[in-house]
């Protein structure tokens, strides 16, 4: 056996120790299930075996759930096999769990660490569950976060143990519980010190513990009520779909599938209930949403986090001492996340007061963490001590990495670069956090442009997970390795792109707001435009995000772009909207509480109704479908242009960058996954149609036309 170590002790107790080979976490794989099946048969049939205990060989990790690649393979089965084949394969884990809990001998789960998804489901099938008193131990069913539903009985056993209403937040949001919460939720039976875990587990069997699950007993009742004649249950299921729609905008079908699995399943005997669950599970894995989400948000993001774009032959280049130039909002945020990762930070600004103010940002965040008991005071003090505010360039001596976040002005930046390079060693790397200025231009001020790179953070730095690494024309492999090693240190997800105006994320993101303004100028209802973005799954509506970015900034970037491109600039209706809003009407955005929105001192922000005076509403408004298409397709087309122009190196970076950088709808798996799902040919033809109506920005780029003609996808 490869995944499970199997032994029988002198008392006749079988011990299953899970140890997935070559993985830091235990996961459910095909081989795991095969071995589990063999062991269940052995335990059932061997008269000398009294019962079985399941535990993990990995410290602090019981089991993290199913192998996501296994789930992708299950879904792909539909292309080669029948629906019955998909069901049978998906049902296997349910079949095994059911076999286990009805085999007549007691099974105990000795939970010695993180116990998620399939790991928890396997445990719930055991007759007794005991967890070690590790405060880091977390249990939960996070399946919904990858667009699927628990498929190993989780939608059935969790509600039957803790009550339907209580269980729904865990199932619908995938939130975790600590061992203590699990105990009070009736999910586990006991918490013991870790060195007593196996002893306690075995005692259950030796003391004649029951080998029958509560739901297999005649008089079983679900705590908190059951069935459609129970007013509590009725109330719960009346409210739950509405609450779910509020959160998901109807874009995540797994949530309704979970509700249905619970609703339908809890009214059935367990043998039928788990089959119903598996059917809803299959519905998700053969759909588009779950595979797209799994591929981008987990498989490819995981690869990016591990440095898939890192040059292989460069030795590790961890950052030890960071010189942070500029202590404004971005600089302060970078200083915080770096110090938190144990990196010494020299936080430099023109005046010492500015630098100190930048450090205060960390102080505030750390104080909050201490107050919320997420961090000890000592740890917070240690982190804060790593940040040294200064106005003296001499303090940068000894830095191995510089990140610059000063004013977006080529001259100012050049000056800062020269002053820094005069102080730091020749092997120091230099990253600019510019969001608009070409790296190659900025690198001209550097005496060693091979060590000059773009490291583009998103605001607020401590919350936004993405870092966009930009390769200048002369940026070398070592600089890339350094930037990626640093990104990994601060636990951000990197994408690597080539130099271009606005790089990748800013350039594509801006099309979202531009198209919204184009439509506004045509007399399309602002609410319809805004809602079409939000209901389509974008993290924020185009006008809300436009106000956040500020119309003022859009104006300045627009002016710079027009100047930069000269004759090549293609005007859009939105140019006039920006001009009107910012220049004519002085509406800067959230900054001055006047933008596309109004920001009353009391009450919620709301769209500015005065806009209709300037852009009167059309009598016949377009459908939501067409508005959504215009918002989404513009972004996707710009992404394809970036791919075509080699700004992007791979579709994986495109999709990760879009979702984590500018909040592109996560349910799609990203813009290129979305184009593949729509169908590249269909997408191309629709864009061609849209370009006739709404202009050249919808004209399919050559790469799209070629792919459409060859019937190729972006992901092969």
């Amino acid at each position, binding site marked *: 056996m490869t995944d499970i170590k199997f032994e029988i002790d002198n008392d006749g107790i079988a011990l299953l120790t899970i140890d997935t080979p070559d993985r830091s976490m235990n996961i459910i794989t095909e081989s795991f299930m095969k071995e589990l099946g063999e062991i269940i048969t052995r335990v059932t049939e061997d008269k000398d075996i009294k019962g079985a205990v399941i535990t993990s060989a990995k410290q602090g990790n019981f089991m993290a759930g199913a192998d996501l690649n296994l789930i992708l393979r299950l879904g792909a089965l539909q292309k080669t096999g029948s629906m019955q084949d998909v069901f049978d394969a998906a049902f296997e884990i349910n079949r095994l769990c059911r076999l286990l809990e009805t085999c007549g001998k007691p099974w105990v789960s000795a939970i010695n660490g993180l116990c998620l998804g399939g790991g928890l489901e396997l445990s719930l099938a055991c007759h007794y569950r005991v967890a070690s008193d590790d405060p880091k131990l977390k249990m939960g069913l996070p399946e919904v976060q990858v667009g699927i539903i628990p498929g190993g009985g989780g939608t059935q056993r969790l509600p039957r143990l803790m009550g339907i209403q209580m269980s729904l937040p865990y199932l619908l949001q995938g939130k975790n519980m600590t061992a203590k919460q699990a105990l009070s939720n009736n999910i586990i039976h006991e918490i013991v010190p870790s060195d007593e875990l196996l002893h306690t587990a075995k005692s259950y069997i030796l003391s004649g513990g029951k080998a029958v699950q509560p739901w297999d007993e005649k008089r079983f009742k679900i705590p908190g009520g059951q069935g*459609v*004649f129970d007013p509590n*249950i*009725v109330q719960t*299921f*009346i*409210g*739950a*779909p*509405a*609450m*779910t*729609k*509020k959160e998901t*905008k*109807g874009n995540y079908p797994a949530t*309704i599938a979970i*509700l*249905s699995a619970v*609703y339908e399943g809890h009214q059935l005997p367990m043998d039928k209930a788990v089959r119903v669950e598996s059917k809803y599970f299959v519905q998700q894995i053969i759909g588009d949403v779950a595979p797209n989400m799994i591929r981008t948000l987990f498989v490819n993001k995981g690869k990016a986090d591990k440095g898939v774009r890192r040059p292989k032959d460069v030795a590790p280049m961890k950052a030890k001492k960071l010189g942070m130039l500029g202590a404004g909002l971005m600089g302060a945020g970078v200083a915080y996340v770096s110090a938190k990762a144990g990196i010494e930070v020299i936080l430099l600004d023109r005046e010492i007061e500015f630098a100190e103010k930048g450090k205060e940002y960390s102080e505030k965040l750390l104080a909050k963490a201490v107050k919320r008991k997420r961090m000890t005071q000592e740890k917070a003090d240690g982190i804060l001590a790593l940040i040294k505010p200064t106005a003296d360039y001499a303090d940068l001596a000894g830095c191995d990495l510089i990140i610059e976040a000063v004013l977006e002005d080529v001259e100012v930046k050049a000056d800062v670069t020269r002053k820094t390079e005069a102080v730091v060693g020749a092997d120091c790397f230099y990253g600019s956090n510019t969001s608009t200025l070409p790296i190659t231009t900025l690198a001209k001020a550097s005496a060693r442009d091979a060590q000059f790179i773009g490291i583009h953070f998103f605001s607020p730095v401590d919350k936004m997970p993405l870092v966009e690494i930009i390769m200048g024309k002369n940026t070398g492999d070592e600089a890339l390795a350094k930037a990626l090693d640093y990104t990994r240190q601060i636990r951000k997800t990197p994408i690597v792109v080539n130099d271009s105006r606005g790089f990748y994320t800013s350039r594509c993101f801006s099309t979202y707001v531009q198209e919204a303004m184009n439509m506004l100028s045509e007399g399309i*209802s602002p*609410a*319809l435009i*805004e*809602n*079409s973005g939000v*209901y389509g799954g974008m993290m924020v509506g185009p006008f809300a995000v436009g106000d956040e970015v500020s119309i003022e900034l859009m104006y300045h970037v627009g002016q710079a772009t027009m100047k930069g491109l000269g004759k090549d600039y293609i005007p859009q209706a939105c140019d006039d909207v920006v001009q009107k809003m910012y220049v004519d009407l002085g509406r800067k955005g959230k900054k001055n509480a006047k933008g596309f929105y109004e920001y009353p001192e009391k009450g*919620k922000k*709301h*769209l500015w109704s005065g806009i209709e005076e300037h852009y009167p509403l059309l009598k016949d*408004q377009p459908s*939501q479908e067409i*508005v959504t298409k215009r918002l989404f397709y513009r972004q996707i087309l710009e992404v394809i242009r970036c791919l075509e122009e080699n700004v992007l190196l791979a579709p994986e970076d495109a999709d990760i960058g879009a979702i984590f950088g500018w909040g592109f709808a996560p349910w799609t798996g990203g813009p290129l996954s979305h184009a593949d799902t729509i169908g590249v040919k269909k997408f191309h033809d629709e864009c061609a149609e849209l370009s006739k109506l709404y202009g050249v920005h919808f004209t399919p780029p050559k790469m799209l036309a070629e792919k459409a003609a060859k019937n190729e996808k972006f992901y092969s």
Partner: protein
Amino acid sequence: MTEAYIFDHVRSPRGRGKKDGALHEVTPVNLLSQMLRALTVRNDFDVSSIDDVVAGCVTAVGEQGGNVGRFAAYMADYGDGVPGMHVNRFCASALVAVNYACARVMAGQADMMVGCGVESMSRVTMGFDGGAWLFDPQVSNKVGFVLQGISADLIATKYGFSREDCDQYAILSQKRSKAAWDAGYFKNSIVNVKDQIGLTLLDHDQHMRPSATLEDLGKLKSAFTDYGEMGFDSVALQKYPETETMDHVHHAGNSSGIVDGAAAMLIGTKEMGEKYKLKARAKMTSFADVGIDPTIMLSGPAAAAKKALARAGLTKEDIDIWEVNEAFSSVVLRFCQEMELSTEEVNVNGGSIAMGHPLGATGAIILGTALDELERTGKRYALAALCVAGGMATATIIERV
């Protein structure tokens, strides 16, 4: 085709639908049977000639379940030989019962019918019968289920009716209902509900608040804000993306009242009328049911009215009396807006906001009110319509003869 005639209609006074309501002690079968008995007392005919008793009832569970029509008829001494049935089209149940009773006559499959309805809302709680569209996630998700009040607020938001518009209409309903009672316009149709020893339990509509002012209503908190916040607003607005936020305008004062009540109509062929010397008071002209988006749910009456008008070959100018159930203020206001009618022309004798809406009985009640008004004014055509849960509506046109 045979013509169907309405010979008589009766209705109970409406009792407040709470434990302190005057009709709370009356079982639903008893309440309906008193109306059915009144038909036989008021009209001299052989009760065994009735081919069927069709009873509307919405929450048909418990003592209101199991075919309230048959057993109310039996309790009214219609005898072994008169069958009964129950129909449910939510709030239009009793109008559908009347339509179906007429249809049986018009199709030549019955000579004498009773269309009736009952709802004892104080005894059988609204919604107690459940239903997949409420809580089966597959169904409610596809339907886009929201509470009726959210739909009413959505109508107000989408079609621009303010809280004040809705409150003003509610005051109008109270004033008109009071005036109609005072003038005795309901006198001929009201059958007082009696107890076991013949004492009168109720002789007036108990829910009315004729002294309510705009200021009083202004103090009431909107009833559906919290439910909306919980998620139902999102469900509604996601279907109507041109709407930024929901304006919650409805409350207990501008929504229909929860009451106990019953009503019945005696329907038959011309021949039956002649045989028993029953006066044919009105003739069934046409009726129609429609379905609309189940989330906005309650804006269907105009579509139903137009369909019934078209079926009859009439135009809206032909209609003299308009009755549209006052489920919520916005329902009537939207009906008027869509039909291009003034509120002056609709529900001239008040309605459910003032007098209450016993779900399974209201359809027959408002058709009866329209008939009384036709007779009082000597006019010809009346149209009665109701919005219906689940995104439906029913309308009926009758002609005075």
